[in-house]
């Protein structure tokens, strides 16, 4: 069995030698380079734009603005079109950095130089700079396709139950705007041949994004071919088509040549979304014994003037604990900022900070162990639908992680543990994520040289799908993983589920499993019907895949290799089709992934910088497909969120609303030296209710609950409750 094994990534050799090809590495002859000019103001209009000097600069092929742009055929649907307003459609400016001109030249240097020669005359209006400035205007977003989940949920009468509860916690929590900050800046290379468009795009899904481009340019979808095999980090920002994706084909049409747009690092921050800042209130009511009676979770996030996009912070809340009376609401409010976008883990990460901090406050007030409080409120069934959970191992996660961490050594008294000048704190928090699945297709070809080829449009973003899906096909056909190759990242291939929302394992993985089973069935049918096969006449149900061929289940000696079977029958390839359709709403079981985090912080008394020296997490995700890549992904999700807990903050300028730190020099993400010991436990239970494979997603659940775990540890160390992220030293002085 290859599944579950800690094998090295199939693309590892390419990645360590520089041979791996990302979108920016694709070369097409005659490519011209486009540079995008962003607005210097955050609200107003372009009164005039003088492009004459830029147009005359050496090498310049075109300067495109709202005044001379070609029309888009239509506005493709949101949410995967990131902004509901197409770029350059008019003179209005909604946020700083919004693209106002495209400069196309022979070389990148020439385009960059010419962009500095464009003179813009702005008419400024006064911007709404921050979430705080807009808080009083919060509203429930209209249902326009961007509202991903219902904005309100109610069960029982939470207000009355809260008023009646003997113990209450009512607090406000804030999360900062976060940037995805992948190391690969987004890049799009487009060229036209008549009405055929070829587009190389750093996207997390070629099949989700191809139709958007087709609609925007008014060509049939099958005239657009979109490629992306490897993404250099996305974390959600490449799950949308941002404006630059539409500007590349537009520019290519204007100059009648291939055009590449690679956005600058600054534009990664301003032009490919962010996790919106939130202000949340959590109100908990409980009995003296810790049983939750009422829960009200209200969240407001900033959105842009272009779109209503929720940061769905309270969306998961109704599903997490067994609370009879509950009310959750999500509102948005408009700020002169770019549209936000789903970032690992949308909504749930910000929401868990508030909810799991509030639970810690409640435990403290009750004098109860915070882990015990969660045990007492464990949701044995899905509290929303009443359905049983599929493969929920949260209690086992609690036990195993607590033991590994040494939670029982914790003296509950804040400030009780010290080591020299260091205050030591232990904290914990839980996490939950609703499991999403989408239809996915794949084929698996068994070839006459005894190897197999998976074909599915999946994009590898670093989650390890190329490897795990190869393992699945290998097991399905009884081949070593090395005998499986993968054609992927091309919209001409069968449609994979997108590589976001933790859907690769469950959805595309299931399609590959079905395709491999289909190919195996075809091989078995061929063998049992072939007079020259040693398996001739056998019952197909008695034939199994084994070491590169087929054999009888009970008589291992009787069988033959795929190679012999196919060659004798003069068949080059046997194709198996896999079409995975998720069960959807009426499934018998509720699907989610679960996790728990335990954190040890050390804080110097005189310079209160929080250091996370030790973090233990346990996850319930069904079956782990590859122990090596899974562990890496989980560690990465934890570390990314430690950044949100301790340093990441995409702060708006309080006057203009412009991001103050749109650069990696100022927007600090964790570096190697920031990281202590990270320990990850998987509590496995193959979950075949979820899908044929028994696996659920990992990429997102691993990043939920960390911020609260850190904040709770900080409270334990210092007695200070920090309710606003990130937890920087100034908040502890």
């Amino acid at each position, binding site marked *: 069995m290859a599944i579950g094994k800690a094998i*090295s*990534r199939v*693309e*590892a*050799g*390419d*990645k*360590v*030698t*520089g*041979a*791996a090809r*990302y979108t*920016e*590495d694709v070369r097409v002859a005659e490519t011209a380079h486009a540079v995008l000019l962003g607005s210097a103001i955050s609200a107003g209009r372009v009164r005039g734009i003088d492009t004459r*000097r830029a147009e005359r600069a*050496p090498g310049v092929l075109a300067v495109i603005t709202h005044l001379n742009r070609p029309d888009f055929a239509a506005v493709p649907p949101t949410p995967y079109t990131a902004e509901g307003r197409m770029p350059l459609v008019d003179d209005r400016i909604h946020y700083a950095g919004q693209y106002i001109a495209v400069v196309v030249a022979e*070389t*990148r*240097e*020439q385009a960059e*130089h010419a962009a*500095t*020669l464009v*003179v813009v005359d702005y008419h400024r209006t006064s911007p709404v700079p921050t979430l705080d400035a807009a808080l009083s205007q919060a509203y429930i977003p209209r249902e326009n396709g961007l509202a991903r989940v219902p904005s309100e949920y109610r069960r029982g009468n939470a207000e009355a139950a809260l008023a009646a509860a003997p113990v209450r916690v009512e607090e406000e929590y804030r999360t900062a705007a976060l940037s995805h*900050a*992948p*190391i*690969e*800046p987004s890049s799009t290379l487009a060229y036209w041949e008549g009405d055929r468009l070829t587009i190389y795009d750093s996207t997390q899904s070629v099949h989700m994004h191809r139709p958007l481009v087709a609609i925007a340019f008014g060509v049939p979808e099958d005239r657009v071919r979109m490629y992306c095999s*490897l993404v*250099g*980090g996305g*974390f959600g920002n490449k799950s949308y088509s941002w404006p630059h994706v539409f500007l590349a084909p537009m520019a290519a049409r204007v100059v009648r040549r291939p055009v590449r747009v*690679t956005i*600058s*690092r600054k534009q990664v921050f301003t032009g490919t979304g962010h996790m919106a800042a939130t202000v949340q209130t959590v109100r908990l009511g409980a009995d003296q014994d810790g049983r939750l009676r009422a829960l009200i979770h209200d969240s407001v996030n900033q959105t842009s003037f272009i779109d209503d996009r929720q940061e769905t912070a309270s969306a998961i809340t109704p599903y997490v604990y067994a609370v009879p009376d509950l009310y959750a609401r999500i509102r948005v409010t408009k700020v002169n900022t770019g549209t936000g976008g789903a970032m690992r883990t949308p909504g749930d990460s910000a929401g868990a900070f508030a909810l799991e901090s509030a639970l810690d406050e409640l435990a403290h007030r009750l004098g109860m162990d915070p882990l015990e409080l969660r045990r007492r409120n464990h949701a044995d069934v899905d509290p929303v639908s009443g359905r049983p959970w599929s493969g929920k191992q949260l209690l086992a996660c609690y036990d195993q992680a607590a033991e590994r961490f040494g939670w029982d050594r914790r003296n509950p008294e804040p400030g009780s543990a010290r080591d020299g000048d260091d205050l030591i704190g232990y904290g914990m928090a839980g996490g939950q994520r609703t499991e999403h699945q989408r239809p996915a297709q794949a084929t698996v070809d068994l070839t006459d040289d005894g190897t197999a080829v998976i074909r599915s449009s999946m994009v590898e973003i*670093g989650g*390890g799908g190329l490897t795990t899906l190869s393992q699945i096909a290998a097991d399905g056909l009884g081949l070593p993983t090395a005998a499986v190759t993968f054609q992927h990242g091309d919209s001409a291939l069968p449609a994979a589920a997108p590589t976001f929302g933790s859907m690769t394992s469950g959805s595309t993985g299931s399609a590959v499993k079905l395709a491999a089973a289909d190919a195996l069935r075809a091989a078995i049918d061929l063998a049992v019907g072939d007079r020259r096969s040693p398996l001739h006449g056998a019952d197909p149900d008695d034939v199994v895949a084994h070491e590169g061929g087929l054999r009888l289940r009970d008589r291992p000696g009787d069988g033959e290799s795929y190679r012999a079977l196919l060659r004798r029958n003069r068949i080059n390839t046997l194709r198996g089709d896999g079409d995975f359709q998720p069960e959807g709403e009426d499934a018998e079981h509720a699907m989610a992934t679960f996790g728990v985090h335990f954190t040890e912080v050390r804080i110097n008394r005189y310079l209160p910088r929080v250091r996370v020296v030790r973090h233990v997490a346990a996850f319930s995700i069904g079956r782990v497909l590859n122990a*090596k*890549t899974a*562990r*890496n*992904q989980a*560690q*990465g*999700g934890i*570390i*990314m969120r430690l950044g949100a807990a301790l340093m990441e903050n995409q702060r708006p300028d309080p006057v203009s609303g412009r991001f103050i730190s749109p*650069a*990696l*020099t100022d927007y600090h*993400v*964790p*570096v*190697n*030296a*920031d*990281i202590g010991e*990270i320990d990850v436990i998987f509590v496995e239970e193959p979950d075949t209710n979820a899908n044929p494979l028994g696996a659920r997603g990992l990429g997102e659940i691993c990043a939920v609950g960390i911020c609260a775990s850190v904040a709770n540890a900080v409270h334990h160390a210092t007695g200070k409750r920090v309710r606003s992220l990130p937890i920087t030293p100034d908040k502890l002085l």
Partner: protein
Amino acid sequence: MDETTRESPPSRRAFLSRSLTAGAGLAALGGTGTATAAAPAVAAAAAVDPPETLPVSLTVNGRRRTLRTDPRTSLLDALREDLGLTGPKKGCNQGACGACTVLLDGTRILSCITFAVMFEGAEITTVEGLADGDRLHPVQRAFVEHDGFQCGFCTSGQITSAVGLLAENPRPSTAEIKELMSGNLCRCAAYPNIVAAVESAAEGRS
């Protein structure tokens, strides 16, 4: 050779002398610096246009290469665009991420914040030049073995940086590895595995 690699901080002197040469060259040729600034636009337009390209010869991964390149072209862009290498990556183009790390005479430098024309006669090694034919460099093998990456976009820089680090300090402690690899960001945060890979390469285990 040995003296250069032991200089600390790495190659600052070499960098200064190269910038001087390049700066003088540019000034003599009409001052690209002013021509790209937006403010004194009219005056700059009247000035002599900068030369479109300048020649530079350097050794890249053991091969002598001569090219004519725009004087504004960074070493990174020259390696990627003019010489067709794909290993060094442009993560930020402002010296903040380390994805563009290459070795200059064995010492790690950020190729995005330095001009190609400054490297006349220099010896550059990119990630493509580390393996010995099909035999991976021990650091590359260690990265495969310890899964020292996810998306892989920072990996060329991480590996070249680790090779440079081990040349500076063949027996680094874990704390030193973490500190000395902190100029190479990994947003996928494969950090624990990167440390494990560098440790095992240092111990000659891979």
